[in-house]
């Protein structure tokens, strides 16, 4: 496998190319079989490579770019970090491909959908398996493109088309920073492979490391939906739900966390940049969780939840605990995609996304309910479920490394998380039914992937120590030992706050049936998402628009159009003027001819003399 692991991304690429070229002639059935199996092959390859992996595998296929002293090979890297990402990505992607067969069954864009989904899987695997920054950037842009295509999948809806555009444009801002970071790193190191940068990081000044790390982090805030560039992710929920589960919950949005973990020595060398990562992460976590408290659209709640959980991951990596951050990424991929798939199952059954029109679905969709409950317990941090271990790991590391404030905010956020996710459950599955007539349980092809994810939502959390040990060959993983008493106290606190969150949700939404929940302007502020979209509109979008209008009025019509029209008018008027010479009188023509010949002769003779 050592020689062949680089094939992992190319199976889905094959599928994508095949569906795009032959989409019109092949049958739907073939697509349903081929698309998931190609991703399945990738998963099997990843699994075998994972089992055989010792040390770091680097496979250089050919020299990709060679200009002057810039030399970038087309190289893949398989090490503990990328192996975990490859496994998570291909595994979750496979399950979601299977789920999509049921979810998208009646959609007119079925084949196009699977072409995009395969293309996404390829780009994401390219991103995680690349051995240098430019290749990672190709994957990075590839997933951005697929995200755009899939958010706007139902492009006949205006909201979907606009959401796609928004995601793409906001990501451009981030990617610009990312690109500048790559340029800076090239000028500093002269080599862009991860192994070189990570091993020579001591050779540059911490200030330069800070600049490069922060520029790259700008890209991460765009791709991973962190403050201040998170605004595209809630709108991205316009896409099909499996897409939200795969791209906007489990894989693509965690690319930023992966990137920071990959270049951790650079961030660590800077120090300041690492703190920025931690603080942006934890503030985003709190910020997004508060918005999620009051949203009524089932997918938007989950979207803000995703932003919040990725914030946790950044906080984990930022306090120096790469293993904890990556562990949360790993477990989160399962329970968050399960939450999305279960929500998709609800939407599939009820036909609406508004939780105020659901209620009482527990009896109609029992399988979905149980899956949802498992994922909810996992994200809330109830002991025994995956999220408990990973979130606890981050909070513990934050506490032990002396980031007491980050720990505190993290704990508060954990309580909010438990509240909003159980608010969602109580509004959707409990109480009496509101606004739906007949719902149905989803087909087996959707339920099986959900059950598998549910299984992993529980067990994937049981291995925190071996997970960290597995990552240790990276060379920058510390395993901190806490005294048992401290650890127990920390656990008790986070469990208590999770249970408190669930209890409050139960009290408000089951006991009091959602009444008496009104905090006036705070509620309004949260419901309006802190009016950040409006703020962006005010300070960026509308000045931009106004400026464009001004330029349109003065430069476009004033300068460009005038130039074009002017050249036409010049020709017309010139023609009019010259046409006066055409008198129509034979003599005048003769006169001009004579004048011409005499002039010609004059010069001819003068040159002879």
């Amino acid at each position, binding site marked *: 496998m050592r020689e062949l692991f680089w094939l992992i991304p190319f199976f889905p690429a094959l599928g994508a190319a095949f569906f795009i070229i032959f989409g019109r002639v092949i049958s739907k059935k073939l697509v349903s079989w081929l698309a998931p199996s190609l991703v399945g092959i990738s998963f099997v390859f990843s699994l075998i490579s994972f089992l055989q992996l010792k040390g770091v595998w680097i496979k250089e296929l050919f020299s990709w770019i060679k200009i002057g002293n810039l030399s970038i090979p087309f190289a893949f890297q398989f090490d503990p970090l990328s192996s975990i990402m490859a496994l998570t990505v291909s595994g979750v992607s496979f399950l979601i491909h299977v789920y999509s067969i049921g979810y998208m069954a009646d959609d007119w864009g079925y084949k196009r959908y699977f072409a995009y989904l395969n293309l996404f899987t390829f780009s994401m695997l390219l991103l995680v398996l690349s051995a240098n920054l430019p290749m990672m950037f190709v994957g990075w842009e590839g997933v951005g493109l697929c995200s755009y295509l899939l958010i706007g999948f139902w492009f006949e809806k205006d909201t979907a088309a606009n959401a796609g555009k928004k995601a793409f444009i906001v990501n451009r801002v981030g990617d610009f920073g990312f690109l500048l970071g790559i340029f800076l790193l090239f000028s500093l190191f002269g080599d862009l492979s991860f192994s070189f940068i990570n091993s020579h990081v001591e050779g540059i000044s911490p200030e330069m490391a800070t600049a490069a790390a922060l520029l790259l982090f700008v890209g991460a805030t765009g791709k991973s939906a962190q403050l201040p560039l998170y605004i595209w992710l809630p709108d991205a929920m316009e896409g099909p739900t499996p897409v939200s589960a795969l791209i906007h919950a489990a894989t693509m949005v965690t690319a930023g966390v992966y990137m920071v973990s990959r270049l951790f020595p650079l961030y660590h060398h800077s120090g300041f940049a690492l703190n920025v990562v931690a603080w942006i992460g934890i503030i985003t976590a709190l910020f997004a969780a508060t918005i999620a408290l009051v949203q009524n659209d089932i997918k938007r709640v989950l979207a803000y939840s995703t932003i919040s959980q990725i914030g946790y991951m950044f906080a984990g990596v930022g306090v120096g605990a790469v293993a904890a951050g990556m562990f949360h990424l790993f477990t989160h991929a399962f329970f968050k995609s399960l939450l999305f798939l279960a929500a998709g199952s609800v939407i599939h059954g009820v036909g609406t996304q508004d939780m105020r029109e659901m209620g009482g679905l527990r009896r109609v969709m029992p399988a979905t309910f149980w899956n949802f409950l498992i994922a909810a317990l996992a994200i809330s941090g109830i002991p025994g479920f995956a999220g408990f271990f990973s979130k606890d790991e981050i909070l513990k590391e934050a506490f032990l490394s002396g980031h007491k404030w980050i720990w505190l905010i993290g704990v508060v956020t954990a309580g909010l998380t438990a509240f909003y996710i159980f608010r969602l459950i109580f509004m959707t599955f409990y109480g009496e039914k509101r606004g739906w007539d007949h719902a149905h349980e989803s087909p087996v092809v959707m339920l099986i992937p959900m059950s598998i994810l549910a299984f992993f939502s529980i067990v994937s959390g049981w291995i925190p120590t071996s997970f960290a040990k597995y990552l240790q060959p990276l060379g920058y993983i510390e395993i901190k030992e806490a005294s048992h008493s401290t650890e127990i106290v920390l656990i008790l606190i986070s469990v208590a706050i999770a249970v408190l969150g669930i209890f409050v949700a139960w009290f408000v939404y089951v006991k009091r049936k959602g009444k008496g929940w009104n905090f006036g302007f705070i509620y309004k502020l949260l419901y309006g998402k802190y009016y950040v979209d409006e703020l962006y509109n005010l300070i960026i979008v509308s000045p931009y628009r106004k400026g464009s209008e001004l330029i349109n009025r003065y430069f476009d019509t004033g300068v460009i159009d005038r130039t074009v029209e002017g050249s036409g008018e010049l020709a017309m008027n010139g023609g009019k003027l010259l*046409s*006066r*010479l*055409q*008198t*129509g009188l*034979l*003599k005048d023509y003769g*006169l001009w001819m004579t004048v011409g010949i005499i002039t010609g002769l004059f010069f001819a003779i003068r040159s002879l003399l």
Partner: protein
Amino acid sequence: MSTFSLLLLSALLFAGGIAGFFVRRDLITMLLSAEIMLAGANLALLVFSTIKKSIEAEAAVLVILTVAAAEVAVALAAIAVVARKKGEATEKTVSELKG
């Protein structure tokens, strides 16, 4: 006759042609003037060909005469048509090309 007087005759013919072309108004006389200019040019060519002792210029003169004959036939026909349509054939009657 000496070469000089022949060349002088050719120049006089040419100048007369030009003068006639610009002074007269009826198309037939203008055409005649143009033919006189041609004759002057032909004469000059012949003189030079005898000086140079070469046959090419004489051949050219024969070609020019042939073409001129054809051209006169066409031009006269055109003038006849103009005269029939408009009642007279002066340069004023055919000034439709005025810009």
